[in-house]
């Protein structure tokens, strides 16, 4: 133990030795004693009555003040001896505490680095240095086991084969793997055009609007994936910011895009156009507008021509029927009928001069008193010679003879269906001119009625309604009756009183129907702007479906002698087609559109309402929503 500094300063050292141990002496601050001596007596603090002034005076006067320290254990002041001061100073300088310690003594090897003949120690070697180590053996056996099991592999020999060699030395062009037979090679990237140049011709640069449009487009929709730009010189060209993205997208395309061989249709569009006979070779057909019949103030809904082809009757929404002379476009007669005229039909019998007019619910039989006086006189006589039968038969309609006033106008007979509140839609004559049929737009079984003029007798041919009837037609030669409902055309045999055929029109809503004078072909116009040509001998489906109108078809017509048919539509055009029917049953009809006739102005979204052929000339009449009737020759 180092010499205690207290021992030197205090004469009886054992008396004052404090026994509190190494504790913070602050604990005794508030007590009068400072600890206990060996006998357990209190050691009292030395009496201190020095104030600041005393301390100062002592500092000033006492020459040993700097070497006086207070012993915390006893509270006494101790004056350090010279040795102690020296020690403190040495320690402050970082020197060894012991004055006599020499840190720079010469080093003396106790072993020499040279190998000597004698061992350093004479201790005999351990036994364990003679026998193999168990732990090592264990470790080695573990490694050996691992190597045996293939867990650890000894270092592989470096391969000497060159990285690249002639891979295709023995190439066999036929050695294509099974999978590669249907392999589709990736398409190459598109090569850049002029617009990608750093200095493109000025026309390839985008204008302001184009640039704006480009920016607003979706990136996938853009035609170019960059904005063409012009730089003055190569030096000014910056890096393309999307270069890596583009490469990446190409990579994605290569491995994520489904590949498909798309057969590019490489056809000359001219080859697609069917080779048809030239319209010039199919003349005659109407080509130009010849006459306009003006007079009606509203839609002209229906047209009819006298069998001689001299007179034309037209019915209109302005509640009149007008009779025109065909060649001069002169209105011969105006007949106010007091209702919208939906349909009008001239008696096809050339010896009878009679026109059936549909006005609201009634049919008027009108003698226009035009042409040969003998002829219309005879007609009147025939009508007047009617004698009612003895017993009144029950009829679905009522036949009325015209009043005097009406008679003067030309109206000869009126008949009213008693119950039906619906207006009549159509009237059509049988070829012989005795029978006529009427259609009511009604869903009852009384839609279609057949009337006989000479006997003033009407009958209802159908027991049951088969849907809304659009129009009806008599077969020109045979006793057939055609009834067009919305989707089908039913053909009835009037003699056998049975359904013979049902034609599928393949359209949504049949609007009109016409029959070829030969009787074997029917055309149907529909509101979904289709025209269906039926060959009755061929099939119940249309032989051809023509879609040449842009809007709904309103009416269709056949020419009596020429192989022509026409269709009028809401788009204001009349399309005249050549429709040749051959007597040879093996040859299909030849349909060629030959002329588009325009002339009617569109009013109320309606164009042509009715078309009609002249009975002998290749002329076509059309009535339109603009209140005119036009003749094309």
């Amino acid at each position, binding site marked *: 133990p180092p010499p205690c500094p207290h021992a030197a300063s205090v004469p009886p050292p054992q008396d004052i030795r404090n026994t509190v141990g190494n504790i913070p002496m602050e604990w005794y601050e508030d007590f009068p004693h400072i600890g206990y001596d060996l006998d357990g007596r209190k050691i009292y603090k030395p009496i201190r009555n020095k104030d600041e002034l005393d301390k100062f005076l002592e500092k000033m006067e006492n020459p040993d003040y700097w070497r006086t320290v207070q012993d915390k254990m006893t509270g006494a002041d101790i004056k350090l001896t010279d040795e102690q001061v020296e020690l403190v100073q040495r320690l402050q300088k970082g020197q060894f505490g012991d004055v006599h310690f020499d840190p720079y003594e010469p080093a003396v090897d106790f072993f020499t680095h040279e190998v000597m003949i004698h061992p350093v120690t004479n201790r005999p070697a351990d036994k364990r240095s003679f026998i193999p180590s168990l732990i090592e053996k264990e470790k080695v056996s573990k490694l050996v086991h691992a190597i045996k099991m293939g867990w650890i592999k000894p270092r592989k020999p470096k391969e000497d084969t060159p990285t690249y060699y002639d891979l295709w030395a023995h190439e066999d062009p036929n050695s294509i793997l099974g999978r590669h037979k249907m392999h589709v090679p990736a398409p190459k990237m598109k090569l850049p055009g002029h617009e990608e140049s*750093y*200095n493109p011709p000025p026309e390839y640069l985008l*204008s302001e609007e184009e640039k704006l449009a480009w920016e607003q487009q979706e990136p996938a929709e853009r035609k170019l994936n*960059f904005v063409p730009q012009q730089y003055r010189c190569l030096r000014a060209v910056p890096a393309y910011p999307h*270069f890596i993205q583009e490469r990446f997208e*190409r990579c994605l395309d290569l*491995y*994520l895009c489904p590949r498909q061989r798309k057969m590019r249709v490489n056809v000359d569009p001219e080859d697609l156009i069917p080779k048809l006979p030239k319209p010039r070779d199919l003349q005659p057909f109407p080509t130009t507008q010849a006459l306009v019949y003006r007079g009606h103030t509203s839609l002209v809904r229906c047209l009819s021509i006298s069998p001689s082809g001299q007179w034309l009757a037209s019915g209109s929404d302005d509640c009149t029927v007008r009779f025109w002379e065909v060649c001069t476009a002169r209105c011969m007669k105006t007949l106010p009928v007091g209702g919208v005229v939906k349909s009008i039909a001239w008696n096809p019998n050339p010896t009878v001069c009679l026109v059936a007019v549909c006005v609201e619910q009634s049919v008027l039989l009108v003698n226009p008193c035009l042409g040969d006086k003998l002829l219309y006189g005879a007609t009147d006589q025939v009508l007047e010679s009617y004698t009612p039968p003895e017993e009144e038969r029950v009829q679905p309609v009522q036949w009325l003879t015209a009043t005097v006033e009406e008679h003067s106008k030309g109206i000869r007979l009126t008949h009213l269906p008693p119950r039906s509140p619906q207006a009549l839609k159509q009237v059509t004559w049988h070829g012989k001119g005795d029978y006529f049929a009427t259609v009511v737009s009604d869903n009852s079984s009384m839609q279609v009625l057949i009337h006989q003029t000479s006997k003033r007798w009407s009958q209802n041919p159908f027991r049951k309604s088969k849907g809304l009837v659009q129009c009806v037609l008599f077969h020109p030669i045979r006793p057939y009756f055609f009834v067009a409902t919305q989707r089908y055309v039913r053909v009835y045999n009037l003699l056998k009183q049975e359904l013979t055929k049902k034609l599928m029109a393949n359209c949504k809503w049949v609007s009109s129907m016409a029959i070829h004078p030969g009787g074997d072909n029917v055309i149907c116009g529909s509101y979904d702007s289709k025209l269906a040509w039926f060959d009755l001998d061929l099939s119940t489906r249309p032989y051809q479906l023509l879609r040449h109108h842009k809007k709904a078809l309103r009416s269709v017509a056949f020419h009596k002698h020429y192989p022509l048919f026409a269709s009028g539509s809401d788009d204001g055009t009349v399309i005249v087609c050549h429709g040749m029917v051959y007597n040879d049953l093996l040859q299909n009809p030849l349909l060629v559109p030959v002329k588009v006739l325009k002339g009617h102005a569109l009013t109320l979204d309606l164009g042509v309402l009715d078309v009609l052929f002249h009975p002998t000339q290749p002329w076509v009449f059309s009535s339109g929503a603009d209140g005119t009737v036009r003749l094309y020759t």
Partner: protein
Amino acid sequence: PRRRLCILKGIYPHEPRHKKKVNKGSTAPRTFYLLKDIKFLLHEPIVNKFREYKIFVRKLRKAYGKSEWGTAERLKDNKPSYKLDHIVKERYPTFVDALRDLDDALSMCFLFSTFPRTGKCHVQTIQLCRRLAVEFLNYVVASRSLRKVFLSIKGIYYQAEVLGQPVTWITPYAFAHDHPTDVDYRVMATFTEFYTTLLGFVNFRLYHSLNLHYPPKIDGQAEVELKPAEGKEYAMDSESYLEKLSALSASLVRVVAPAQEDEVEMDEFPVEGETAEQMDARRKEQEALEKHKKLFEGLRFFLNREVPREPLAFIIRCFGGQVSWDKSLCIGATYDVSDPSITHQIVDRPRVEQQVVGRYYLQPQWVFDSVNAKLCLPVADYFPGVLLPPHLSPFVTEQEGDYIPPEKLKLLAMQQGEDPGEESEEDEEEEEEDDDNDNEEEEEEEESEKEEEMKLKKMEEQKTQNNKALPVKVTAGKVKLEDKKRLEQEQQNEEKRLAIMMMKKKEKYLYKKIMFGKKRKIREVNKLAAKRKAHDDAIREEKKKNKKARRA
């Protein structure tokens, strides 16, 4: 790993014929692979290698985690490796197949070789890419197979004809990339892995087809020249070698010394069914090609330091020119600026301070345009500081009805041997005007159909109007000069229209589609022509104004 396998094996999805049926009734977009393809993947031996590698990575991670350095070292020594040789062979059974698919490989390698050597991908990959790319460039130089070059805003396109196959690749401009965040570099790295293998084998074969050493060796004599004069070590041997190669200024060592290989007369094998004319055309083509290959023969170029060295050196060397650059710019410079034999100096600065007499100072576009035009273009348009003529894409071959920029027309005329000579500006302008007129005429012809329709419509309208005018007036009749041609045309048009009406639905649809496409094309052409005309007019106006101002 499936993705990686698909990329390496070149397996792509298929679009099923009935998408709903395959997708359990849903129409959500999904990718479908053929079952056969996936089964085919299972037989691939590389799958096992991938598994091994996965296990290796796991073991290594574990060893590192346990700080077992010895184990880690041992594992690293036994790192499993795999080769893609058999996949390359399988995907490209013949060499020509590989050449056909080289475009993407080259573009990718050139891109990767410009990547920084930090992050993104392994340094070895980048180095390998650079090496392969430089080797390929050297091959192209040696075989003189470069055909077209194009300075685009995206980068520089090159097209070479390698063994009869056109190979196109793009290199980015030499700038640092700002790496996009939405790109998966692992996918790109997988592609590159395959592409480097492919390109290595292709290079090997190509070098051997020219009797060149592979890996390439620089000619002994040239190598001596290339040695830095001061005897200082330039860089590590391997690195400096690659750099010397990439300098592209030295020719390569051949395995068999070339025994005066020039002017080997091509034996002509008359192909059956080929007329003399065709033969002649072929021979002419061959001659033109030979001439094109020797475009820059005998010319000595010097590249200024602001000019991109590598592309220009490559192009000039490809066409037989000699090229050098500043010594401090790159290794491999063969002569100095002051060399009096220099014929062309490529400069890309607004003006050159000290001009040496006896050489042309030209902008780099001259080299590119000359290569594309297959002749040395007149130099006047390319002097430094001059407004350059537009740089056209050589990849566009205009078909009938396409828009052809007037510059291209001029070029075509020049190629056909018409000497443009010293045309005054006026003449040029006139010529341009003529061109424009020609264009317009063409357009007119194209549009004539439409116009006629319009006229017909108008006539008919007039007719109807005339008919409507009820108060009849008799005016002196005019003798109508009936244009017979016109009438006939009209009639034909009408016939056509009527025939179109009779087309079947399907055919009509197709016809309309084709016609729509044609019309759109015409519209675009017209738009371009109109733009050009407006631009030319504006420039002419400005010129006139300037002239007036000068006069005043």
